[in-house]
């Protein structure tokens, strides 16, 4: 009997200590996380298509992490859809210990991850620097509630690009764009959705042609969509015969469109990144006379985030990195167009005077619009339900219509 009692007691103690150590990372203060992360390696899976972003991560971020926290950062380039796919397979196979510590995701990939319980969290409230962010500004990701499962780290806004040496007055509203395109056949096109940028272009036209974004911010309303979408298809079909290659084909992604723009085959380009033109000028890919503009009717912005997989082998390290990315130092360095030009997610009024001034005095470069111009035009992303409908119907109503 006594033996039995000891056994039960031992089991209870073992069970408690087991849960305690598992919960340690969830409840412990940030200092404890920093202590645990020391000397560890963090594998950050992120999109690797931009050399300037890659070198910012490899040089600045990795260097600072090494110095401050003794963390080795390994950047693993991969498209979000591909690593989410890998994570899904790991989940299905029941793998408790994965290979990825931190992910760069947003939008559709975040939704896919949440629907399949692929993420660890909530995490953002545990990051000390998250107090510098206005939580309401990052409550939704393409209409999907974030609930703290991803930590914001940057903001991008949609802009159009043109070379001021060849084009004096860019068409800066959707009505003017149509007139301009019809006058300049073959000099404009957009990447074919579901490419991220091409899809954003049609969403923006959708807002502009149907009376603004406010009506779409709630749940997806099929009737509203059916009523408004034909206006968009009529507009895009009016452009179609005047597009590059008479609209018979579209560049398959924004990189293909960039190439056409670089070579002068099209005169207006677009980017879901307000500082991309400035970076490309600094890289020598674009002429120094390239400028950007936004449409009068508004320009879409979105926030990108970092998230931690459910089976991250180095949870503490991942959280420390996510927090470092939110620090004013990292945010400022990232905001510099020489490094990347990605906008900060911090609420400037939550910073002290000195940091606020540093952000305000940042030279964004002559190709990038001022913060005020961008802010004035900024409109939020559409809930992903609408996005899927638009992408699906674009194929039917525009791509394949004759």
């Amino acid at each position, binding site marked *: 009997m006594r033996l039995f009692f000891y056994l039960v007691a031992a089991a209870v103690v073992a069970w408690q200590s087991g849960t305690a150590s598992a919960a340690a990372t969830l409840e412990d203060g940030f200092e404890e996380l920093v202590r645990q992360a020391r000397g560890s390696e963090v594998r950050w899976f992120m999109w690797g298509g931009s050399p300037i972003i890659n070198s910012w991560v490899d040089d600045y971020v990795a260097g600072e992490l090494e110095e401050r926290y003794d963390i080795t950062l390994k950047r693993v380039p991969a498209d979000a859809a591909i690593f989410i796919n890998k994570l*899904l397979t790991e989940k299905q196979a029941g793998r408790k210990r994965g290979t990825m510590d931190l992910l760069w995701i947003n939008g559709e990939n975040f*939704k896919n991850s949440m629907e399949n319980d692929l993420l660890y969290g909530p995490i953002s409230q545990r990051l000390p620097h998250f107090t510098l962010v206005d939580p309401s500004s990052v409550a939704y990701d393409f209409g999907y509630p974030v609930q703290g499962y991803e930590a914001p780290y940057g903001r991008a806004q949609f802009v159009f690009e043109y070379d001021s040496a060849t084009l004096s007055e860019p068409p800066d509203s959707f009505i003017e764009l149509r007139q301009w395109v019809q006058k300049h056949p073959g000099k404009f096109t957009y990447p074919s959705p579901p490419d991220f940028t091409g899809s954003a272009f049609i969403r923006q036209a959708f807002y502009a042609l149907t009376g603004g974004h406010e009506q779409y911010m709630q749940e997806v309303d099929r009737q509203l969509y059916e009523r408004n979408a034909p206006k968009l298809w009529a507009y895009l079909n009016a452009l179609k015969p005047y597009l590059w*290659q008479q609209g018979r084909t579209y560049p398959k992604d924004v990189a293909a469109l960039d190439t056409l723009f670089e070579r002068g085959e099209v005169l207006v380009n677009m980017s879901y990144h307000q500082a991309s033109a400035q970076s490309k000028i600094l890289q020598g890919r674009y002429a120094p006379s390239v400028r950007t503009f936004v449409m009068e009717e508004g320009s879409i912005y979105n926030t990108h985030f970092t998230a931690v997989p459910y089976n991250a082998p180095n949870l503490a390290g991942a959280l420390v990195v996510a927090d470092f990315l939110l620090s004013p130092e990292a945010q400022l360095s990232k905001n510099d167009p020489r490094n990347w030009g990605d906008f900060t997610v911090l609420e400037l009024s939550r910073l002290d005077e000195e940091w606020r001034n540093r952000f305000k005095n940042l030279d964004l470069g002559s190709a990038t619009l001022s913060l005020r111009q961008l802010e004035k035009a900024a409109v939020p992303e559409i809930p992903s339900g609408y996005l899927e409908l638009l992408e699906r119907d674009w194929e039917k109503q525009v791509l*394949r219509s004759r």
Partner: protein
Amino acid sequence: MMRSRPSIVLSLLPLLIPFAAVIGGGLAVTVLQSFGLVMYAYTYEDMLFAYRQLFSDTWFLESAAFSFYVALAATVAAIILGTFFAYSIWKLPPRYHRWTVIYKIPLILPHIAVGFIAVILLSKTGMLSSIAHQLGLIDGFDAFPNLLYTGTGIDLIAAYVYKETPFVMVMVYAVLSRFDRRLVDTAEMLGSSQVRIFFSLLLPFLMPVINTTFIILFIFAFGGFDLPFVLGSSNPGMISIRIYEYFFQKELALRPVAMAMLTLVFCFSLLFIVFYLRLSQRVEKGVRKL
């Protein structure tokens, strides 16, 4: 030849098991997911929803027909050109044979490199266009003819023909070199024309290798991804690009549609092989009866 030899099967087992596990396992998951099963956290009420989606509209059939057309045109052209070139080389005096290694260059280029070469050379602002401009043949790149991204598939067909013709040459030449030249000499002495010699004497001898090559090239071009990715147009679009879009770029819940397309492509390829082999056997039998 078709006798069952258990000992052979047993000795092949170490090879067969990984083969069956990888191919069979992948195939099983593809087919199951096309019916909406083992789709992570998603459940589907209608098991045939993906197939219904494919046939509720014409895009899938258009893409499939376009892929079929590109693959067939490219393969037929490559077979004709490759056989002709191999025959021409074979007829050359042997001392020239080592120079013909040049034709093997496209063979070592990956498909994607051929795609990039086409873009660099042929696009409106490409090298040919610049040369034409420098020579004063055209005023600017707008005057350069549209060769790429025309939506007609001609660019894809040309790239496949460039890439596959040397492959046909290597295959055909290998068989030709085993052919007894004295038969040709005899036919010439008896007064056969060159055309007659080629079609009645050499071609029947070459048909087995041509058939094999045809199947390999056709199946590859039909499902190939790299060239369509670089050169393909968005409409109607090759089937492989459609699969890629549904697999990676659209909502995860739509993945069964990609899997259904993969399943259908696989079934089609199998059926194609069976029909092609049947047909070619029948034709060959007819030839022998003559």
